[in-house]
């Protein structure tokens, strides 16, 4: 299997702080790749490196074999890498529809003609936001805004979708619904990398998981390998629980 995304020895410094330290991994087309780790492990920083918010201090990011490190977020978006934000950031004074339309208008083009409005409608239907399409996005409840965050990103037509804590703050029902949505997104041949703190959610859905701690990769593997990995247990719970 060829890698859709490959990171090689990725390093990011913020002054003296090493937020991401020589992290290498590959994500294959069609998989859901989970990213976990204690607070401050560098998960969000890693996302921001991939999406282009920060340039890496060192290392290389290859998307479909092409170097994308150092590109601005709008450029990586046009390549097909789209991220959502951990803290939802809807365009507050715009309707839900116009929010999605921004992604549809400015995101990656599909081959051939694409009717932006039809595509917007399709994304709204797919994500179940169609009934709220004409509401101002600031008036949506948190679950709706989280969903809008995903819908907007989908409208930009990604090949690789980076989801940053999309179920944080949601109740169990809403979490289950979001997980369903993510499975459906995968069904559309979109590869997903997701950061999540809700263990049950991410363990149940991911094909593979990578664990970061203090900016370093400490484990990678299938969910059931990860939960039994003593290094991971130590990072989360402390030494006395490991082994």
């Amino acid at each position: 299997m060829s890698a859709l995304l490959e990171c090689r020895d990725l390093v990011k410094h913020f002054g003296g702080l090493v937020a991401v330290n020589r992290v290498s991994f590959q994500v294959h087309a069609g998989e859901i790749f989970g990213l976990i780790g204690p607070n401050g492990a560098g998960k969000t920083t890693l996302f921001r490196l991939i999406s282009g918010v920060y340039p890496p201090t060192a290392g290389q990011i290859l998307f479909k074999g092409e170097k994308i490190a150092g590109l601005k977020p709008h450029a990586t978006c046009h390549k097909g890498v789209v991220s959502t934000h951990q803290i939802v950031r809807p365009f507050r004074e715009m309707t839900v529809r116009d929010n999605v339309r921004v992604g549809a208008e400015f995101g990656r083009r599909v081959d051939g003609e694409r009717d932006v409005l039809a595509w917007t409608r399709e994304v709204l239907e797919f994500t179940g936001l169609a009934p709220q399409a004409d509401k101002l996005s600031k008036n949506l409840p948190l679950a709706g805004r989280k969903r809008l965050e995903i819908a907007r990103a989908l409208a930009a037509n990604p090949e690789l979708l980076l989801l940053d804590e999309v179920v944080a703050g949601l109740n169990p029902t809403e979490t289950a619904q979001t997980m369903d949505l993510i499975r459906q997104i995968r069904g559309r041949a979109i590869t997903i990398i997701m950061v999540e703190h809700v263990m049950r959610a991410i363990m149940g859905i991911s094909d593979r998981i990578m664990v970061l701690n203090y900016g370093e990769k400490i484990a990678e593997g299938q969910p059931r390998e990860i939960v039994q990995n003593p290094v991971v247990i130590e990072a989360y719970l402390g030494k006395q629980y490991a082994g």
Partner: protein
Amino acid sequence: MKRFYPPRTLLAWLVAIGSLGMLVILPILFKGSYWQTLAFITFLFVSLSISWNITGGYAGQVSFGHSTFLGLGAFATAIITLRTGLPAPFTIPIAGFLAMVYGFLWGYPTLRLRGPYFSIATIGVGEATRLFMTNLDDSLRNIPRLKELVKYRPLTGGASGLTLPIPPDIQSYALKFYYVALLFMLGVLAVSWWIRRSRFGLALFAINMDPDAAETLGVSTARYNVLALMVSAFLVGVVGSLYAQYFFFIDPREMFSFQNSIAMVLMPIIGGIGTLWGPVLGAVVFKVVEDRLLTTHLEWGPLSINFVQFNLLLYGLLLVLIILFEPGGVLGLLRRMKGSRLLKRAFTPARQKG
């Protein structure tokens, strides 16, 4: 393309056509250059206000450097007319174009800064431009190779400004410009209206509300910010050109003044920043208040109070009140008032309707 506005009601159309008709026949009803000139300058300021709103209101990049475009447009027209003999009306597109190029030149680096940092940078650009243009002639005189440029006639005129030739039939000339300015104002309003419903406008509003999110979704914030500034600069440059042609006298210290930049910031804020009609209302309020202040003075016992002195104080106070109590400006106030459903529909702020 989908409409962002519901169709205007009949009443709104009647109001629009009625007021436009009034403006067309105004110079015929009120013979007299005072009112005509006040109306002319108001048209220009409405145009400035709408133009500034494209960057400041739509994209949310608050520029305090827009007098650079106004001055450049005015001086482009004056210098070209005086030096080449090209009829002044032909210099209008050149004036707009030069302002646009200047907008690109200083916008490209400064628009990388965000929010207040951008605003502060624009103050610097504005002041630097004003000083440069005011002292240009003197500086050139000291450079041997360039001395010839200003040997026989001034370039920007320095502190004494430039005077354009005055046509013989001043009254019909002024009347013609009244209608030119009116038409131009309508044109600028049309541009502003078009931007709101275009893809370009969607990008600007997205950048305004959240630049990071816009960038993530594929909007090149740098490119659209610069484009918006260039459109705005072009229109302001044309206003500068019209100003020079109407008043025949321009002075770099006044044209490039910080006061002019401030006026362009104040007008849309007074009226309702980021809306279509807010800048129009704001400019009218601004100009009328200014005119009343300039011409009114109070006699109170032995005291004679000239309101001109309180000009800036009043605007400062107004700004504070607006930002504290009604960030939507006059439009926001109107919308709050009872029975405002019609207004709400006619003046939808930054794309509320899908």
